[in-house]
Every structure is written in structure tokens, then in C-alpha cells.
């Protein structure tokens, strides 16, 4: 990647922005705004920055991660590394008790497959990097962030997404009924993930304390701050409050 800098004070930023930034970017000195003039100017590769203390460098490395994600974004970054995400393969998945055959490249996440190939859009993508829990699904009964699981890795497993939580006759799960009774969702974007974590919790611990519920649900962020409502919903679903 071509990185050329003229003025010394540009070095750190340009270095950071370029090494990690997938977009090809070049910085010109304010003195050299004409692009052709830049090419004719004597330049040097900036491998050493006299201002670059060790502390600044360490910070810079940390920040370069942030800068790297800003340009082209990280959504589907794993898939996009090879441009087309690799060769699609027809695989069989067990989703909500049904076998689904679907073409999936080996680098695709389960969240992507559920939402964009199987149209199961109840699974939400809030961050796509394992921070928020909006995409939580159960894999063999265990809550997982679907944004952080590769679809090819769950071929032999049972996946339960929010669409499979209610009964076949449409009866809502006790957790869903309790969340309605508590008016638990606010914006509702995190709610499918909250439901999934609560369903898994009660399957393993039918009468959790509020503190146990908070621990079990703590991987699910709610930006609206409806935590107490969800916890009361868990207690209601477990029959501890009516």
C-alpha cells in the first residue's frame, strides 16, 4: 500500500489510518494540494516518527483498530475478506425443529444466514461483534450470539431462534407472556435476544433469584434500560410473582 508523507507531523495519523484502513488513502501535505505536484515532489517513506513515544504508539495501535472499522465498516467483514465470502455450499441446518437446506459460504455467520437467507428476521443484529446480545439464539439449548457463530459450525446442532419459541399452535412461551404482562420491551430491538436468554435460563434453573437472573441475562444489553422489567418478567414466567 502506498503511504507517503511529507510533513513530519502527519506521520502518525497517516501510518495509523493506512495500515489498518482497507481503503487506499494518501495524505498530502497542506503545502502540496495539487495531485500532480505531489507526484513530482521528493518524498520519503515515513518509517520513523521522532514524536512517536512508546506510549503514543501503544495508544495509536489501540486506536488504529477503531480507525480500521470506520472506513469500510466491519459488517460482514469476515465474509468480505475474500470479496465474495468464499464458495457457497449446500448444507442442512436444523432451525426451530425443521430441517432447512441452504447455500452458505464457509465464512458466513449464523445471524446472517437466519436473517438474510432464511428470512428469520426476528433475530436482530445490534452490533455484529458480540457485544449486545440482540442476536442471541439457542444452540443445543445454550445461548449464543448468532453474529459470532459460523453457520457451517452448527450443521449437526439444534438451533432455536425467536421464531421457534412459541408453540406450534401459536401459544406464547411463558417468558413471552410474562414480558407482555410486564410491558417489558421498550423499543423492542433487544427483546428477541432477551427472550432467548430468559428461555435458556428457565430451562436450566426454573426458579432463579433476581440476582441469578441478572447474571444469566447480563450478556443482553438493553439501551432503553428496561432491565428491571425483563427481570420481573423472568420471575413472573417462573411463577414467583403473579
Amino acid at each position, binding site marked *: 500500500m502506498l503511504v507517503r508523507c511529507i510533513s513530519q507531523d502527519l506521520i502518525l495519523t497517516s501510518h495509523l489510518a493506512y495500515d489498518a484502513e482497507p481503503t487506499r*488513502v494518501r495524505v498530502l501535505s497542506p503545502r502540496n494540494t495539487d495531485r500532480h505536484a505531489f507526484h513530482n515532489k521528493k518524498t520519503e517513506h515515513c518509517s520513523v516518527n521522532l514524536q512517536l513515544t512508546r506510549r503514543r504508539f501503544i495508544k495509536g495501535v489501540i486506536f488504529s483498530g477503531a480507525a480500521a472499522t470506520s472506513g469500510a*465498516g466491519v459488517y460482514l467483514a469476515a465474509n468480505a475478506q475474500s470479496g465474495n465470502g468464499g464458495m457457497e455450499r449446500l448444507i442442512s441446518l436444523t432451525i426451530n425443529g425443521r430441517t432447512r437446506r441452504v447455500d452458505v459460504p464457509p465464512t458466513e455467520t449464523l445471524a446472517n444466514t437466519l436473517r438474510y437467507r432464511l428470512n428469520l428476521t426476528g433475530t436482530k443484529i445490534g452490533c455484529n461483534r458480540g457485544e449486545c446480545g440482540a442476536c442471541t439464539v439457542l444452540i443445543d439449548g445454550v445461548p449464543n450470539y448468532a453474529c459470532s457463530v459460523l453457520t457451517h459450525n452448527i450443521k449437526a446442532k439444534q438451533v432455536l431462534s425467536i421464531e421457534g419459541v412459541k408453540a406450534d399452535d401459536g401459544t406464547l412461551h411463558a417468558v413471552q407472556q410474562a414480558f407482555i404482562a410486564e410491558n417489558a420491551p421498550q423499543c423492542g*430491538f433487544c427483546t428477541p435476544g432477551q427472550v432467548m436468554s430468559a428461555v435458556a435460563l428457565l430451562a436450566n434453573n426454573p426458579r432463579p433469584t433476581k440476582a441469578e437472573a441478572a447474571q444469566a441475562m*447480563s450478556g443482553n444489553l438493553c439501551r432503553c434500560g428496561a432491565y428491571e422489567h425483563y427481570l420481573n418478567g423472568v420471575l413472573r414466567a417462573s411463577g414467583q410473582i403473579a
Partner: protein
Amino acid sequence: MSTHIGFDFTPPDVPGKVTGEIKYAEDYKREGMVFARLLTSPLPSGRVVGIDATEALRMDGVLGIFTADDLPPVAPPGNPALASEYVSFVGQPILAVAAITEEIAESAIEKIRVDFERRPFVVDPLESLSPGGANAYPEGNTLVRTQEEGPEGTPIRGAEIRDIKWPQSAIDALRAGKEPAGGEFTTEWTFGDLDAGFAEAAAIVEEPFVTIGYPHHSLESRTCMAYWENGKCYFHGSSQSQSANDNGLARMLDIDPANLIFINEATGGGFGSKIGPYPYMAISGNFAKRLNRPLQLRITREQEFYIGSARSGMQGWIRMGVKENGKVSAIDLVVVNDGGMTGAGSGNSSAQHVTVAYQPENMRFRGISVYTNTTPRGAQRGPGQNEMAAVLAPIADKAAKAIGMDRVAFRRINAIDSGGFQGGGQGPVTSAFVREALDQGMRTFGWAEKNALAKQNGSKVRGLGVGIGYHGAGGRGYDGLVRIGPDGRLYIHSGVGNLGTYSYAGTCRAAAEALQVPWERCEILRGRTDNHLPHSSGQGGSNTIFTHTRTNWVAAQDAITKLKEIAAQDLGGAPEDYTIGDERVFASAEPGRGLTYAQAAARAIELGGKFSGEEYPDDINPITQRAVQGLAGSGLIGVAKDNIPGEGQPPGILVGFCEIELDKDTGKIEILDYTAIADCGTVVHPKNFENAMRGGAVWGVGLAAFERHVYDPQNGLPANTGLYQSKPPTYLDVNVETKMGAVNIPDPQNPTGGRGIGEPTQGAAAAALASAISDALDGHVFNTAPTTTDMIINHLAGNDYSTKYLKTNTF
């Protein structure tokens, strides 16, 4: 007697949220849909010298590139959808590429070569105001409004950028906690006689303060999808508001609002960042039009950090004079706002909080809002008021202590009541009952009992705090629209957005109550323009409950008038001889003589004219006119503009009480009790009131103790773009049950009695927690929001480097 107002119900969108069936903008697909991705600035400040997309455009599957040249020019200080020449913050969108798949669009972005010229940057307002300090824009560093500002969240109009520098002595003074004499301000007001007020004071407290802005972090990023059919644009967006977006979005798309179908059934959080149409909507709609394909522009979590707006920060100074009896005699307030790349701060709103919380007899405010090369800033839950509440509470505690007065008693003597005022113009309020709230809160919390308990327990020390949150909470003059169908059901058309507060549903209950229709016989139509939605306010500023219980009430009254007129016409007598009940209109003296609502609606259709919407009042908004035209002939139409007389601002006010345990070894804070009492008039929907109260408490903890932007002053790069890094509170951070209540005294200017409360719930919690932290540490004033664990530990260790000099980017 109330039948709907004050009672619980299940808003109709809740079941869809727990089953995942309700759809957000990104959940929609359309045949032939293509995908756009953004290329964003890696630099905090620079000039785009050249863009070479040749290689990208040669790629199979790439459909086109969209740049600022494809949009009308936006002159500074506007916030352009795409940077035209200058980039002003890391993450600023420069162009979009569309392709048949997201992967190809992503890959194409990587092939684009952008040449930049780098410019100096600045991430601290005081650095920019210093002599020789860098300016965020080539034109200067300060946003100066040349017209009165619009409502929060609306685009800045009538403003210019100026280059303002302060003498170094003013910068040094402010950093040292003194008045920045010689500094230039762009907003200034005074009431009373400041000098006389301070001369009367028995004690004067003088403190600096700094609050750090932080992102909204709406969990649903602002992904949009648009397509065009027969000259109409169908636009799936994520917005707090519904019909309030119509005109602005239509302008962005250069179409008549009648040709816009804006679709937004559910919104994954907004918190002020999605009140109106945001600039990036212009990309999806116009790019889709150019390609003549449905187009989705997905915004990633990182991009949402960059373009999803953030709270403004403050660096400021306050001097408060207090008389012996506890009355605040004078306040002198200075606020320097960090306006990010959009420049707008909330200083005036911060000052407004001060006026409402302490009703000073004399006051001066001076403010200036400075651009920095950080993310765009905008309204965020109680903008100005809430961060001021957080830093002011410990300062007010110090003033109370200086005259030997209990902290709650101090707030009580200065509390606003229905004869009180708000803001620099000392405008009236519709009603206020803060003393009643404080009294109720003291009892519920056990203020006196808890003050009598021992403070120290090993390494842990207890702290008690009290805080006040305030926000103006209501608007006037919007329209209501209801329809009684020939099936006898009541259809309530709501142009209110669905941002998760359920106020769209709660306000519809006013129409059901007025028309005495059981809730199960009512249906709300909302969420897309072609549901014929009236002109409604933007869902910001906690206004909806007040604003739209009124609009639905007046629309229902219009329907009642028409019901009586139809009955009189068909059954004899005068309209005033009739009354309503049990979904009938009937003669008061002879209840058997009447029509069912279904019969009356059928007659309205036969009669036509005003009864069925062929005619409508002159004073309703064109948006409502179109909605009525769409409904004409389908039932009995009730439509009216809210002309309910009255004046003054309806305030939403909350008092919070907090008890914490602070571990002096670790700096960890555990909240033992949080009690909050609202003064929001009649509680319209109790369950939803609880949502606001608890959610606001979580937001208050975030503001007071966790959340902040961190920009590296050396490189201008943001350090905490992710959720984990910027730390919105989790289940484990706020593991406490909120005790709550409401004064529940109806507001006299709302037929249903309600006022809004969404925003002050955060301010009161933040203030009460900050007050408690200070109390736990013998009244130490940190002067900063947030006050993080490391700041507490540093203070206990005798280091104050993280809270000194009004630093805005602390690690």
C-alpha cells in the same frame, strides 16, 4: 370518571416485539433490492483532493457511486449527508457504492482511492478557543445562531460559523475554576440584578464543571431502504417520529410530500438522535431513484457511533449565592459547549435547568458553542438539562452545607410551583408541584431515617443524594384525527412515532375515553403514511403525552359534535339535547331515542360533507388535509387542530433520592436504594410510566458514572467506538429496584391532565447519584460527569489529574 386514562393496557405492538414478528427498517426486503455501503473519513479533519473509483466501478456487480455531487450543496454549518470537500470527523461519510450484493459493495469500497489534504484538528473546545488554537472548520470554530433556534433535533437554520479566540488568561481562569473574564460569548441573558443578588448572599459557592458527551448508541442503527413506484417514494426508515418527518424527508428527496410513503412501524431506539429526518436518509432515497432499484443502505455499529449523534459536552463555571434562609439569590453561569462537527450545544437548556431547579432571584447566563472534530452532536435525552443536573447537584449540596441547611430542605425552599418560571425569559409553566414531590419522596425513601444511620462500615461508606430532573414536556397546535367506521369501531389515526415509549398508544386512549369506546373496540392506525396520518409533533422533548392526548381529545370532541348533529337531524331536536354513552348517541331525556355509532357512521357517509371528511376545518395542517382526503367517505370523521386555550410551558419534573455504598478500596459504587417521584400531571399509562422511570434511572447511572467519549488529542481518533468500550450500563451495573411514585395532580391545561416525563427521569437519577457520591466522600465535588471509578480512586489516593483542568478526553 376515567375509563382509560390512568389504567394499564397492552400497547398493540408489544406482542410483536416478544415474538420477533414486528418489523424494523432493516427487516424489509424488496424484489431486486441492491445494497449500498459507505466510505468514511479516516481523518479527523482534511480536504478531499481527489477520488478515484475507476477500479471499483469496473467490478462485476457494482452499480454506481454516489457522492456529494449527487445531492444539493450544503453550506456550513449544515451537516451534509456526504462530505463534499472538507471532512470534519473520523467516520464522516464521503461516498456510497451500490452493488448487487453487500459483499461486492464492501469489496468495491476497498478499491476506491481517496486523496486527502490533511488539516489541523481539535478535540477540546477550550483548545480551540485558545490563542492560536486549531479550528474544526476552515471558516472558524464557533456556531453562531442568527435566528432563534428551532425545536430540539431540528436542523440548524439561520446560523453561521465564526472564528472566536479568547485571551489565554480567560482559558487559564476557566481551567482553574474561575470566571473567564474577557472571554467572548455568543449567547447571553440576565434577569434581575446579579450584583445585588450576590450582595444579599450569606454564602457564595464557586465551582467549575465539565461534562463529557457520549453517543446515543441506539441499538438499531439507522439503516434505511427505499424504492420508487409510479413517482412515489416508499421509504423504510428508523425514526422516533412519523408524520413530523414528511416535509423534511420529501425535501431531501425533492418530491411533493404527497408522494412520500414513510414506513416506520418500530424503531430500535432513538433517544433524541432520530427525531427528524437525518441527513443520511437522502443517500438511500436518491441513490435508489438514480439506480431505479430498491436500495438498502446498511449502517454498521461503528458507523452508528460516528453518525448516530451524541450528547454535547460542557466546560463551565458557576457562582451561586444563597441567602441565610436558603433562597438562591443569584447565579452566574458560564457554559462552553463541545458541539462536535455540528457545533450545536445545549448551554441554554442547561441554564434552563438551573432556573427551574432553583428558581434563582437573579441570574446571568453566558454561553458559547465550539466546533470540534468529533462526531455530530444533537439532542440526547434531556440535552443540556440532564448533564447540568448531574454536575450541579453536588454544587448545590455544597451551597446548602455552607448555610447549614438540609439538602432536601434547600431544594424545597427553592422549588418551582405553579406560579414559578422557566428559562432566561422567565416564562410561565402550566403547573408544577415539586414541593409535593420532594415531600412524597422523602417519606418513601426515608430521608430522615437514613440520615440518622452510621456512615462508615469498614472500607465501605454510605452516601445519600437528592436530585432534580426537568425538561419542558409538551407542545400545542397539532392535529387529531379519528374515524368511526360503519362497523362501529373507533379508528384512531396517529402520526406519532413509535420510539418505544408507547406514547403513541397512550395518547390514543384520550380519544377512546372522550368517545367512551371500550379499548377492544378501538384500533390505532399508524406507522406508515398511507395509513392516513395527521400532522403530529416530532417525538422528542418528552412532549407527546401532553401534545397528543390533547389532539386526540379535540378530534374526539369534533366527532362527538358530529354524532349529536346527525342524531338531531335524523331524530329531531337540537344537538345539545343529545349525549353519548355505550357507543351510542341518544337523547338525554329519552335514552331509547338514538343511534348506535355504527348507524351514525353509516349516516355520516350518506350525508357526506364535513361528516365524512369531504370537508374539513381550514386550520388543519396540509399533512392532515391529505389524511382526511384519503379517508373521506369511509365513516364519521373527527378532525381538529388543538386550539385548547392556555399558555406556559408544561414542565416534566422528577425528584430522585439515592443511597449508595462506596468502597474506598476499590472505588466501586453499589446503589442500595433509588426512589423517584414524578411531577408529570396525571399518569396516563401506569405501566409505561414505570418504563420511563426505570429506563431513565439506568440512563442516569450511565450519565453520572460511566458513559463518555474519549478522543485522543494527539491523533484525533476515537478510542471507544463500541458498546463494550463506551459502557452503557448493563444488568449488573444497575441491579437495584427503583421505587417510584407520582404526585399525580392533573395539569389544568390538558383535558386528560397529563404532562411528559421521559427525559427528566435520567436527570434526576444522575443528579441523585452524583449527590450521593459527593456525600459519601464528605462533600467532595468532582465537578465532572461522568464520575468514574478511576476518578474516585484517584481522589482517594490524593491524585486529581483526571478531574482537573476541565479535561474533556480522560482515560
